[in-house]
């Protein structure tokens, strides 16, 4: 088991990639705090974790709220005795073409994807640098390379990469690593909202010829979270079927 005795927090754990990461972490022996704003969906994940015989703690709330984030980190440490892995996966989309994008659409995405990620990153980093060990995994997206209709989302995901690099540089001497996964088009609820015609166009742009499975991203997250990846820091690793080889 690659994460035996480790304690992790996964944000956005109620569905999609975050949910898949949560299950894989549990399978590898970690105890996990599951964070999401959607309580009902999170309870379903909780049930499944219990079925698997895993241990988890639920944190229902909004990562934009700094008090919520701090209490989530505190509760995790109080309940499980430690925090080894922070996975900043929670994100939202509010797609619109640039000339039609509202200020609200922009703000909501930036709030959750950037400010929320910062809040979690900071709270976890303060604890981890104190104990001199830990790893943080941020989730970006290949939309960071620019994706029409997602000006807000792509800007936020580019920001996540920049935060990853800066945090990695700052935290390395404290033996805390920080990396980023950049998934391509993964078959999740977020994608299921896209019209069929657009889906076909997306699929034809992937050299592998198919969408990714959330589990394939989760495998990479497990590797990065494990001690096997102890020398990797500051990196953004694409998991995208070859869509962007940058």
């Amino acid at each position: 088991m690659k994460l035996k005795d480790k304690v992790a927090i996964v944000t956005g754990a109620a569905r999609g990639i975050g949910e898949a990461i949560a299950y894989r972490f549990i399978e590898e022996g970690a105890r996990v705090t599951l964070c999401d704003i959607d309580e009902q969906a999170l309870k379903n994940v909780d049930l499944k974790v219990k079925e698997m015989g895993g241990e988890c703690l639920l944190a229902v709330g909004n990562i934009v709220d700094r008090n919520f984030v701090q209490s989530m980190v505190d509760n995790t440490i109080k309940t499980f005795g430690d925090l080894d892995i922070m996975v900043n996966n929670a994100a939202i989309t509010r797609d619109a073409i640039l000339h039609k994008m509202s200020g609200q659409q922009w703000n909501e995405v930036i709030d959750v994807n950037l400010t929320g990620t910062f809040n979690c990153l900071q709270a976890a980093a303060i604890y981890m640098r104190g104990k001199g060990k830990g790893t943080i995994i941020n989730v970006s997206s290949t939309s960071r390379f620019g994706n029409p209709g997602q000006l807000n989302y792509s800007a936020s995901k580019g920001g996540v990469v920049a935060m990853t690099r800066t945090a990695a540089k700052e935290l390395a001497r404290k033996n805390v690593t920080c990396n980023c996964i950049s998934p391509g088009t993964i078959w999740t609820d977020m994608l299921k909202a896209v019209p069929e015609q657009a889906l076909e166009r997306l699929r034809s742009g992937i050299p592998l010829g198919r969408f990714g499975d959330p589990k394939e991203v989760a495998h990479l997250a497990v590797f990065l979270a494990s001690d096997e990846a102890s020398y990797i820091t500051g990196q953004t690793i694409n998991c995208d079927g070859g869509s962007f080889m940058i």
Partner: protein
Amino acid sequence: MPVEIDLTGKVAVITGAGRGIGRSIAITLARAGAKVVLNSRTASQLEETAREVRSIGGQALCFPADVTQREKVEKLMHTAVTKFGGLHILVNNAATMAPKPLLEQTEQEWDRVMDVNLKSVFLCTQAAGRYMVQQKYGKIINMASTGGEIASPMNASYHASKAGVILFTKSVAVEWIRHNINVNAVGPGFVDTGLVDQFIQKGSRETSLKSIPIKRFAEPEEIANIVLFLASDLASYMVGEHVIIDGGLTIP
């Protein structure tokens, strides 16, 4: 259930397997169950790697040869297929360097660096690819380097060759993914091997350490871990990636 990477029934060819990162990769893949075909020019070093593989219950075959020569490369892949019954994983790891001010670099040195670091990757990938395309399965991992992305003085040939490996990786990755062959690259920074001492011969280890945010060199095993991951089906959605593992040395 936890997922253990199981390479039982898989055959891996590793070039430059006599020491350093290559040896560690061979042992790591063998520990996961792969039968390993070990290549480098120096038979005695290969035998030592093979001994270590066998000591953990693995199967190893030594094939000492210069992989800059086509006939030898073809024979290497043929040997893997005939002796071990297949060829599923190729790790192009053999590399050299001739660090020197550019004005002093000889054409012969340049050619040797290009041959060992780049041409051998072409020859091995092509020869192994003939089997992999046919069987519709393959994992190719090219050892690139942070030096393929970021430059340092007095090593132009090395940097050029490793940058070549990265784009070679990406081009072949797109070309062959339809044959179910994943081609990726791994880019180590400073690793505690003999080659790193060549690279930093002009400065001290301490100076180099200062430039690494994580304040230590990598152990060869840490590089082998990511190679194992990429050699497994867990990384099936990764195509044409260059995964840098450098302790933060070259964070852009």
